[in-house]
């Protein structure tokens, strides 16, 4: 039931967006050189934090752009929204 400020369109109801899981998981450049364990780490392992989480959202019923959101999963408070390719705040 929250409001997300799309970096391209502005504030919209969250029903316009779809969730894309944890952010900043980079697809390995050379998957064939990874061990099964390393590949599984990329493929399956997610943090599932209670608290501040960096995650991906897509304005799927709007501009279709992906972006990053820093959200507190315990109260859905959104602390920061930043574009793809930008680094998470330290």
């Amino acid at each position, binding site marked *: 039931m929250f409001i997300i400020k799309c970096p391209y369109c502005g504030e919209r109801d969250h029903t316009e967006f779809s969730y894309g899981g944890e952010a900043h998981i980079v697809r390995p450049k050379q998957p064939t050189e990874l061990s*099964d364990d390393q590949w599984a780490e990329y493929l399956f392992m997610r943090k599932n934090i209670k608290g501040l989480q960096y995650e991906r959202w897509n304005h799927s019923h709007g501009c279709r752009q992906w972006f990053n959101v820093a959200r507190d999963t315990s*109260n859905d408070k959104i602390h920061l929204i930043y574009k793809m390719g930008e680094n998470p705040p330290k």
Partner: protein
Amino acid sequence: MSSKFRLQSGGEINRSEAISFKFNGKTFFGYKGDTLASALLANGIHLVGRSFKYHRPRGFLGSGSEEPNAIVQVYKDEAKKEPNVRATEIEIFEGLEAKSQNCWPSVNFDFGEINNLFSPIIPAGFYYKTFMWPAKFWKKYEYFIRKSAGLGISATQRDPDLYDHKYYHCEVLIVGSGPAGLAAALIAAKTEKKVLLVDEKPEIGGSLIGSNDNVIRINNDTPKDWIKKTYLELLKNKNVQILNRTSVASYHNYNYLIMVQNLTDHLNENDKKNKIRQRLWKVRAKKVILATGSIERTMIFDCNDRPGIMLSSAVRKYLNHYAVKCGNNAIIFANNDDAYETALSLHSKGVKIKAIIDIREESNGDLVKKCTDLGLKIMWKHSVVSTGGHKKIDKVFVMKLSADNNSVVGDKIKINCDLLCVSGGYTPAVHLFTQSGGKLSFDEKKFYFYPVKTTLNQISIGSCSGIFNLKKIIQDSNLKVNDFLKTEIKNEIIVSDYNSGNFKNIWLLPSDKVTGKTKSFVDFQNDSTANDIKLALREGFKSIEHVKRYTTTGMATDQGKISNMHALGIISEITKTKMGELGTTTFRPPYTPLTFGALVGRNVKQFFDITRETPMHSWHKKKGAKFEDVGQWKRAWYYPVNNENMHDAVQRESKAARNNAGILDASTLGKIDIQGRDANEFLNRIYTNAWSKLDIGKCRYGLMLNEDGMVYDDGVTTRLGENHYIMTTTTGGAATVMNKLEDYLQTEWPELKVFLTSVTDHFATVSVCGPNSKKILEKIVKNINFEDQKFPHMSFKDGIIDNIKCRVMRISFTGELSYEINIQANYGKAVWEKCMDAGKEFKITPYGTEAMHLLRAEKGFVIVGQETDGTITPVDLQMDWIVSKKKYDFIGKRSLYRSDTMKDGRKQMVGLLTTDPNEILEEGAQIVAEVKKKPPMNMLGHVTSSYYSPNLKKSIALALVKNGKNLKGKKLYVPMQNKIIEVIVSDSVFLDKEGNKLNA
């Protein structure tokens, strides 16, 4: 038309407008402004229902949405009858018909009352314990239990009423129009902000409605005059909107609230016509001011549930607001000073106050003094220990409390009466606050939970924040609201003040009877008693959440508005746990029940879901096609001719497509236009096979995997130009494939210059197949040379039909010679009809999705989602040929080399032939190697597709079978309920293995 218990004058009812209504078949009269409750009370009716479990007679307890007892069936007709409506909230109108629930044959003589005699043997958990064995008898028990459970009867026909939804944005939302809410509204009105004030009641004023004029003065006016003046004052402000009869159902994060506005329930039948019954408001508020008030508590003593035992504040409201006496001989039972306002009101209207029983030792409050001055008899440190009277209270038994309040001592005094007004103090209505995620704290001295912490832009003011004194409420609201709105508006409201004595709380009052012999009700609606709670604790339930579910306390339609605090208090006392540590159960939305109609709004019938139709839909419909839902699409399933059944139609269509010509509407396939410098490289990365060498004008089938190596989607992609492709996806996968591709482009490979456009709806696709298809196309698309050398399989040409450009692909999902015409959607139907005309001489036959599935199964072509289920790799499908070994990387490649995806014994796709060629397998049936007498058997897999092939004249099936690759020629079994079917594992391509038909 005067009613026995109606006062000669006074009240806010309109005496010039008499209204007749029916209750339990009998006609009564009331006045405009009455609720069903007040009108019945005016007629001396207290008995309105029977309790849920013991069928004890029950009457009105409260006067608003907190009412647990007086829930009735409002009867109009089969479509509009409504169960479980609170009589205290029904505004009467001419023609209203209501009746009691949970009683048979009538509320006065109820057969189920026999349960009351057996009540010692049906305590909490009775049903759980008794009907558990023998297990097979449950089905018999269930019928009777279900019949005896539940209260009202729901409608059996479609609701004919109109319901609306409305989205609304405001800067300040004020919930509740009591003294705090009105004070807040007066301040907010003076700002430029857009303000919405809502209240669930028909009139504004909250707790001031029905207060005693002689006790309270606001700005030297009576409360009702002040309310009227305030209302007019607020209406002058264009930025303020006031909604009454509007209940906030739920309060979500980011100040998103759902409210239900009742628009016509109070009108007579004629005025209801063609009007919207209820409107669901979806409100986003910048700031929310909760002024939701408080709910008076009852007290817990033996037989505290008889008709005529009512909340003190309710009695006061019936008297002062509706001019109704709830009795002639009243007893007040209190633990606080507020009840004395009721005593004074009753006394002034001629009701005899037989006694005021107060569990406190004394009170120095002003109202108490007034009562003493009037000579009213006050029994300090006494408690009601029991009551008498069958369908209406006729006496109470009173005893003195011991010094430690743990027992009662002395003589048992009997006092006759016809009304007992109970006041156990007030509980802040924090429901909405907690729904919004706010945290509560328990005040161990004042015995209530109050709001302490919220992360939202929100405040709680008035009695819902734990302030009960009117003067303090006004002062505190003014301060808090000014602070909240960052204003400094002087909002002078002068309230006559009086001193109040302290409040004293005993959760479960002591009794002279032994435990187990008392019936002290905690939850009136679900009939759970203090003894039930004690029993639950004895049986080892510790968590409040468990006790609640075991005893069902607080789980009725009132959601424990009256009962929750006492249940908690009793648990706290017995377990010697502090209330604050015990916590409270979760208050869940909705605050008061709401109708399905309001939730659904206009989204009914054709508006329930979006349906998508192809440009040729009307043609299919005219030809009598049966349709199948594929996602939101309506696809032609088969076209029965001369009353054919589905099987015959599909067999005929399938034969025609192989022997002459078939035509299929393939417009629903997803189409994505791909352009850009790196389009080729992009396709290389997302498909399993190589794309770099695809020439312009050629088509290629591709398989798309998830990163975990599992098949995700498939389809044919055509290279239209140097950097221009058109991709097709499965009908159901169009949107998700588009999203997935965008995801990779934007987040993993932003360096690739590729642009995707969904063009599914822009093109209509007509697929013509069969040996005659070429001849038909030649008649229609004159600019294309259809010779095999010029236009081979898996290639594309730009065509022109009647000056309209189109794309013609020679691709095949049936294994036949086959062409697809893609044309701008508006021309779809025209081209389809043109094909039909041109194909007439070649016996062209339209075929639906079912025949298409059959035809592709004959060829062993997979359908993603039918042969695959998200756990199947291309290798499992025995489609190793489509997985490039040379490509360095593509989505899902690495996962194909995981130990799990490479292990032996995975399920693989195979063909199955039944030993009896006429036996058709059931899709989804399990496959075993060894049949045992009964399950469990070792299951090897299941049938994914199964048909009778008219072209091969035998039954064929596709299946996923463990280690299937190595089982060719082996005999397996498909055990069904009444037979065992023998099958032989075969190749999955059943027809034309060499592919000769593609060039027929």
